[in-house]
């Protein structure tokens, strides 16, 4: 792997973390409406997987979708503007946190319905097969969503038709306000692929290199026309279901442990980068990563500034885009 790719992956993870921290702060200041769901602690999955994709490949995301969008190249300014309901946001202020999409970047949308992106991903993969254009689609979803009946319908059709589809189950240990393990008849989620004839593997979702490796293999398999794969990526939902989640259902000390250097995906990757003796021709210096972090902080601040300075949508736009009038 090239040094540029390592640094880009680090950069994207930090971008997501800082974006989310800003979004959390704005939400806490009552500057956002509704609900928003934080991807903090799960960054390695979105970034590791999307690093295996081309620009024209597609993804579907979830209600916890900011990370997927940024990992696939989404613009933090338009995202932040959308979170603040501005006319310059990705959805012109009509979607908010759970509906951000950028079709030009292959981002087929976050989704407010748990498991709602699964069929859309299969539809995109179906279109790739139909056109024989070599594209693949990644479907991100949580361990709560794998219990939706539609997952089985889609897994069956994806296996049957050998769709170029990669199911990425972010096993963050929670399904809304419960430990998800309460709801699995069998805790080995990789078995969910077995009846449909495609491989299911489990990876350490906080180890970006392990995630990336598994995604590369699944993407290559899909591009070869051999069909779908299921990647179960183990991680931890640091911030609860939504901002403001009372977290009463969670074991004390657990989240703090996952935020430590042994678990946190960014700290782990940073340690790896610094301890690794040689990347290509030279070492990566800590100062270099710190400079990168500073640059990202400025980028996020600029995104917030852009959002705050952007106008709200005019009320006359209420009726726009319900229908396409060609």
């Amino acid at each position, binding site marked *: 792997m090239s040094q540029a790719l390592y640094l880009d992956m680090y950069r994207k993870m930090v971008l997501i973390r800082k974006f989310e921290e800003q979004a959390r702060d704005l939400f806490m200041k009552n500057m956002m409406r509704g609900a928003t769901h934080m991807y903090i602690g799960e960054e390695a999955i979105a970034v590791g997987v999307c690093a295996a994709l081309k620009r024209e490949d597609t993804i579907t995301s979830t209600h916890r979708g900011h990370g997927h969008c940024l990992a696939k190249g989404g613009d933090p300014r338009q995202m932040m503007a959308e979170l603040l309901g501005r006319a310059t946001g990705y959805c012109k202020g009509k979607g908010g946190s759970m509906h951000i999409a950028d079709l030009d970047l292959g981002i087929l949308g976050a989704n407010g319905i748990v498991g709602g992106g699964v*069929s859309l991903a299969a539809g995109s993969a*179906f279109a790739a097969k139909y056109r024989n254009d070599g594209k693949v689609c990644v479907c991100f979803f949580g361990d709560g969503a794998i219990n939706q009946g539609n997952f089985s319908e889609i897994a069956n059709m994806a296996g049957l038709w050998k769709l170029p589809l990669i199911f990425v189950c972010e096993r963050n240990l929670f399904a809304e306000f419960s430990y998800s393990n309460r709801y699995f008849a069998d805790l080995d989620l990789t078995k969910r692929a077995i009846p449909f004839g495609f491989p299911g593997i489990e990876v350490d979702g906080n180890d970006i290199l392990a995630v990336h490796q598994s995604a590369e293999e699944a993407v290559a398999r899909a591009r070869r026309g051999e069909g779908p794969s299921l990647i179960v990526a183990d991680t931890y939902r640091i911030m609860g279901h939504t901002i403001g989640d009372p977290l009463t259902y969670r074991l004390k000390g657990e989240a703090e442990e996952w935020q430590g250097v042994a678990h946190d995906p960014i700290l782990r990757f940073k340690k790896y980068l610094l301890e690794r003796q040689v990347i290509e021709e030279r070492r990566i210096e800590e100062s270099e990563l710190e400079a990168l972090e500073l640059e990202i902080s400025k980028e996020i601040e600029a995104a917030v500034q852009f959002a705050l300075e952007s106008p709200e949508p005019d009320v006359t736009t209420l009726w726009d885009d319900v229908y396409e009038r060609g």
Partner: protein
Amino acid sequence: MSERIIEFREALNEALHEEMERDPNVFIMGIDVGQYGGVLKVSKGLYERFGSLRAVDTPISEEGFTGIGVGAALAGLRPVVELMYIDFSCLAMEPIINQAAKARYIFGGKANVPLVIRTQGGGGRGNAAQHSQSLEAVYAHIPGLIVVQPSTPKDAKGLLKSAIRDNNPVIFIEHKLLYNTKGPVPEGEYLIPLGKADIKRPGNDVTIVSSSRMVLFSLSAAEKLAEEGINAEVVDIRTLKPLDMETIGDSVRKTHRLVIVNEGVRAGGFAGEVMARAYEEVFDYLDAPIVRVTSEDVPIPYNEKLELAALPSEQKIMDAVQGLF
């Protein structure tokens, strides 16, 4: 343009053949639509002509394959998804209502969902409560969807072709007792625009607004009413959403009386919507209260006598009209 007499299902079949020939992005998917030729025989010959990738047989997974249709439409294809009965569309409401209907709006106008859901609605054949519903009002309630209910072979073909070319999701409801009906259909290429009602019978004394099979009932009732000296105008709305209130309003301004016939059950039904719109827009022109003829508020029963009692009929329409004079 010369015409020939063909069946409603043949007219739909021609529309599919022509549109799939015309645009390689158009494909059909659903249960047994391919090799078997379709339970409704509407997709007959498509598999032989276009192959398994464009006449796609699916497992019995309505939510899943309807959702695949939505995703494929977002990716730029133009899927025609067949749901064998509209009752089964209840299994696919998630992709239809939460995804297809809203994608364009919530993505700030940057997405299109050029999807057609073809499905079979209505009662009258003893299929009982889970195969006889008229759920058009459910879909007409959802912003972002277009809802079409043709009544004649000619309309069916022209409207289906327009639906396939439209960039919005269209719920295209075919009545199970219309597939075998025959009528004149032009030889060559033609389209019938979505959102335009059609006056199927001109008249001056009363307006009867209906769609789908209820148009046939309304027309036969109108013939009998004519013998009694009541000259009814029958407006086939064809597209429930968007609703052509202009044509309905013009008719009411002429006749001053309105009867609405809809096969859906009364409570929350589409007849109530037309009635409300008419009261809002042409109240001053009415010489009598608006009357609805609908199915009774019961699940559609199996027994023939019971089913006939549940559904609208020619006699019920005549009674409703006569009550206005």
